[in-house]
């Protein structure tokens, strides 16, 4: 049988997918063991036991200064920033993307502006945001919004503009006005695309969040890993990074599930 025709079934796919992850873990454990046999107080590749011990304090013991359970407070702060920012992104992208996608005149007027903003590296704007909004929450949320929204707007506007002309003509011959076209034809077909765009934007959104937290913050997952870096605390950094990945995966899965539940029609063609 040709290699290109070998298709694993669902169970085998899961096993195959888990295999590389397992290999990475095993390789890490070996490397850690080797380093610790040479130097029992090695900090670069901490053993799982060291990680558990270090994380235990952050998970269940309240911080004597602030009274927070640090790990959970960090998670909550980061997720709150991310959630508010992505909510603003989704709403504004939906609004602007719809207008740009439906009205050729709006596209001609504002398309250039959106593109210009989209090509600015958002991190380069971080100093400006800190100067304008101060070092509080607003600047961090704004960084994510500025980083993600232009991409979402362009993606949505392109998607709506690429709806078959036949559909729009047909709707007009059925008596639909511009408003009704937007509400009943463009909006429902834009929503699954918006969710797909958000899923793709999760990666960049986390990058901007961690960057903003690293530069100026007093709480948050990104703040914590940059803080403990000063003490070479890999036993905290590694669990935090794993936790961030897990959160990202869960958010992605949740969005995928939301799309499949709410917009079943959009997933039928690919089945």
């Amino acid at each position, binding site marked *: 049988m040709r290699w290109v025709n070998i298709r694993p079934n669902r169970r085998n796919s899961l096993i195959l997918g888990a295999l590389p992850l397992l290999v990475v873990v095993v390789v890490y454990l070996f490397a850690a063991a080797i380093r610790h046999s040479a130097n029992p107080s090695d900090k670069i590749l901490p053993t799982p036991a060291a990680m558990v011990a270090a994380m235990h304090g952050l998970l269940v013991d309240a911080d004597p200064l602030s009274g927070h359970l640090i790990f959970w407070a960090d998670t909550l702060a980061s997720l709150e920033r991310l959630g508010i920012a992505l909510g603003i992104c989704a709403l504004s992208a939906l609004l602007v993307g719809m207008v740009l996608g439906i009205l050729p005149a709006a596209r001609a007027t504002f398309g250039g502006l959106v593109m210009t903003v989209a090509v600015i590296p958002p991190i380069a704007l971080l100093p400006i945001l800190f100067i304008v909004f101060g070092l509080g929450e607003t600047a961090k949320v704004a960084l994510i919004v500025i980083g993600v929204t232009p991409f979402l707007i362009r993606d949505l506007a392109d998607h709506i503009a690429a709806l*078959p002309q*036949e*559909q729009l*003509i*047909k*709707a*007009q*011959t*059925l*008596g*639909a*006005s511009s*408003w*009704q076209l937007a*509400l*009943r*034809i463009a909006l*429902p*077909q834009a929503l699954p695309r918006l969710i797909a765009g958000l899923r793709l934007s999760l990666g960049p959104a986390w990058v901007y969040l961690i960057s903003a937290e690293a530069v100026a913050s007093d709480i948050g997952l990104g703040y914590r890993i940059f803080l403990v870096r000063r003490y070479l605390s890999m036993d905290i950094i590694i669990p935090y990074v794993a936790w961030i990945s897990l959160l990202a995966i869960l958010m992605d899965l949740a969005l995928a599930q939301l799309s499949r539940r709410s*917009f*079943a*029609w*959009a997933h*039928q*063609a690919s089945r």
Partner: protein
Amino acid sequence: MSDLLAFENVWLEYGEKIVLERVDLAIAERSFVSIVGPSGAGKSSFLRLVLGQEAPTQGRILLDGKRLTPECGPDRGVVFQRYSVFPHLTALRNVMFGRECTDARFTARLFGAARRAAAEEAEAMLTEVGLGDALHLYPAQLSGGMQQRLAIAQALMARPRLLLLDEPFGALDPGIRQDMHRLILRLWREHALTVLMVTHDISEAFGLGTRVLAFDKRRIDPHAPHRFGATAVYDLELTRKRRAAAPEIPKEVLRLTESVITNTQDSL
């Protein structure tokens, strides 16, 4: 029978390029007009003019004696070869869409008794085109032929003065196409429709139409082929009797057919 649609010396130009020239036509109410011609002979441009997607560069188009506004409206229904149904709505909601737009200007959604009435009417229309069992399926779950039935039902709900068909059966299997021919003829008779159908299939054009228009360029300048536009070069009234007894296709039209075939082969 009175004229429903009239073209008076209509020209359509895109800058230097002349697509249609001197189109003079009168289309009677309740006729079934087939439009044939080689690719690039302005058949689709002609349909776009009637649809109001474009305005003529010169001349006038009259519908019911009134000048046509260059925008699509509910007096002219259309079925395209593809993409004329909404993928995010079930068959029933697809057919109800027109009613929801005309009766609820702001929300474009109906509620209560109005909604039930619209749903009943839509269901009757779907049953009439043979989709009574597929009310709650999405277009992606329907075959090509069923999607076209849906598109026809959707267009008929708006009770258009004129039904435009742009190669509606071009993408269907031959067997399905036969069923669709019977369906469209039945609907044409029962709903007293006036139909304009663009097609590549000459036998379909003669089999369905009460009148066949062949579009082509009258003259061709080899050095500037874009400077002469196409027009209706043949205009054949088919009587009911001739249609029934496999009509004799005029030689000129057969020649056109061949050019269609060669064009198609060239493009393949």
